[in-house]
């Protein structure tokens, strides 16, 4: 299974460059990435930020159903990745979440599963690749999607193709039909919630490209559980030694 899946993905990853050191930045496409960053910023300024601001003025929690619906529709895809990573616990939790929220939670608009402690085991194919030992690859900024890496960009493509939602016969039609618009809505709501923090990075920093890159890489490595050991001297660098 593992080999088969690796075989399927290998062609996509053929372009990946060598693994960077875990704390470093590998950005051979910086020139191109910076152009995409400028494009993304102008799209944010024109579309996403104004929509996010509007969403942020909605009554507290009133847009949560959109986020819930989108998360729920993404669960079957997450289960596939849980399984590909050998994470049976996560697969079980996410399956149960999907069943409970799609039925009791009215097509996923509500989150009764979360209320009883069934929290989503978030994952994606980028993480599956990391679990399989595929190196991170070079940093990439993708149009519309923003910061990524070669590995995570390949993961996005595979997630899109692999998503079993539309092939699940018993799933109510609306869950399939509104998955995409809900996903877009979720982005808007989240942009609204991130408001000032995001504005600080994009519009108040001296080099928003470098900041976004640093934040994405560090946070992604953290999410993927690549937490350094307590003896890692590269990660736990010492600013006191440097100053002497």
């Amino acid at each position, binding site marked *: 299974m593992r080999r088969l899946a690796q075989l399927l993905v290998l062609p996509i990853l053929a372009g990946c460059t060598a693994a960077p050191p875990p704390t470093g930045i590998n950005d051979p496409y910086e020139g191109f990435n910076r152009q995409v960053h400028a494009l993304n910023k102008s799209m944010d300024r024109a579309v996403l930020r104004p929509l996010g601001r509007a969403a942020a003025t909605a009554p507290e929690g009133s847009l949560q159903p959109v986020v819930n619906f989108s998360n729920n529709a993404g669960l079957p895809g997450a289960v596939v990745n849980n399984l590909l990573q050998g994470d049976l616990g996560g697969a079980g939790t996410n399956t149960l979440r999907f069943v409970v929220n799609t039925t009791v939670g009215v097509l996923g608009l509500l989150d009764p599963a979360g209320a009883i402690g069934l929290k989503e085991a978030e994952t994606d194919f980028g993480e599956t690749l990391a679990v399989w030992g595929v190196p991170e690859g070079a940093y990439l900024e993708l149009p519309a999607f923003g910061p990524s890496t070669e590995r995570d960009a390949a993961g996005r493509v595979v997630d899109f193709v692999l998503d079993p939602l539309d092939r699940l016969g018993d799933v109510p039609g609306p869950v399939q039909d509104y998955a995409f618009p809900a996903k877009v809505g979720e982005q808007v709501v989240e942009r609204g919630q991130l408001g000032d*923090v995001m504005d600080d990075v994009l519009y108040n920093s001296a080099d928003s490209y470098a900041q976004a890159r640093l934040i994405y890489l560090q946070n992604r490595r953290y999410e993927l559980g690549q937490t350094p050991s307590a003896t*890692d001297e590269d990660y736990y660098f*010492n600013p006191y030694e440097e100053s002497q």
Partner: protein
Amino acid sequence: MTVLTTRRAFLAHGAALALAASAAAPALAQDLTASRALVDRLVADVNAVIASGQPEDAMIGQFAQIFQAYADAPTIARYSLGADARAATPDQLARYTQAFSNYVAQKYGSRFREFIGGAVQVEDARAVPNGVEVQTTAIFVNEAPFRVDFWVSEATGQPKFFNIIIEGVNMLLSERTEVQAMLDQRGGDLDRLISDLSRM
């Protein structure tokens, strides 16, 4: 005889070990305790400001003061300058540290705004190569709890934190990136950066 020597050697060795252990253990324990206590006090102060229900601007001012009180600003400032710190005169460095401290306290003080309505819990402390890592969890309404780590050092004589890591994102590295970019924009002119930072 052999048995005796062995026994004596063993005893002496054991005593030495015990001595070493008793000397090392309190030092390490004290370090952990002091560092954890620093973050405990910091967190208590932050939570108290949050609970005070003052207007947001007043809170941000107080967060900035908390940052000044608990952070090792000179070390953070010097690190943010990178190699340029070595080229700076002592006078420049002193003025830069002052300007940077104000800038960074304002910036992170206003970031603490995100904590309004939430609370921070100290979870654990462990020894790491550059000091002590104190792990905390930030808990917000309607949001998944997230991890905030403080790196604490006693290198200056008393415990101060010199780095905050929020879900893997590291303040020292962010600020070095930012300061390098600001310096580049000013053609490497440190004095101009100092005067611009002072006005931020």
